[in-house]
């Protein structure tokens, strides 16, 4: 196993640990804001794992074709297109993750509004104290 492969698996292992920390903190911490914080960390870890799955060590450019608007609109011939596809990373996971970031923002905004209203009504945002208050 080469050195690059070892470092690639090390990054994958630390990102999985990041997701595990996010999930654990989301379940077993009582404060509402701490739960929301761990939710953002968990979604970050999932995005990074998906982007890492599409990375190649031999790649040298992002999946944007360098013709287009800047250098005049030219269509590539098949040889140039094949060269570009060999030297770019995989674009499919990145396209999937762009929607996940925006939807994560909407979910966080809704849950933060609920937490703010709970704090205004009960005077605290700790779930253990709210449970004791109802008895």
């Amino acid at each position: 196993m080469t050195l690059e492969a070892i470092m690639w698996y090390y990054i994958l292992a630390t990102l999985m640990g990041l997701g595990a920390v996010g999930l654990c903190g989301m379940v077993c911490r009582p404060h509402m804001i701490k739960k929301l914080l761990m939710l953002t960390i968990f979604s970050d870890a999932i995005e990074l794992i998906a982007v890492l799955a599409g990375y190649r060590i031999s790649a040298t450019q992002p999946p944007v074709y360098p013709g287009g608007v800047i250098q005049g609109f030219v269509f590539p011939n098949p040889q140039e297109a094949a060269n570009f596809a060999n030297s770019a990373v995989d674009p499919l996971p990145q396209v999937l993750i762009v929607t996940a970031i925006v939807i994560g923002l909407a979910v966080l905004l809704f849950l933060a509004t609920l937490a703010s209203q709970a704090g205004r009504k009960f005077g605290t945002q700790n779930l253990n104290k709210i449970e004791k208050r109802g008895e």
Partner: protein
Amino acid sequence: MIHIPLLIGSIGSTAALIAAILAMFEKDLLKAIVLSGIESIFTAFLLVVLLAPDLLIAYVAVGLGINSVILIYALLRGERYEE
């Protein structure tokens, strides 16, 4: 010749993991929000290293600025310390 992006990528992911663990065991919520800021910064760093520029623009606008602001604004209604 070692591959430089994977080297600095492994340093960044290690720092993000340590920051997340510290943020989980922190009792002061304002400190925990600032500690999750480190995690966001190293996530943006990893997105640059892994060659995803369009994803980077969306993440910088959303994850680095607006998430912390929303959480601080929601924390104003409640209490700062967690028992």
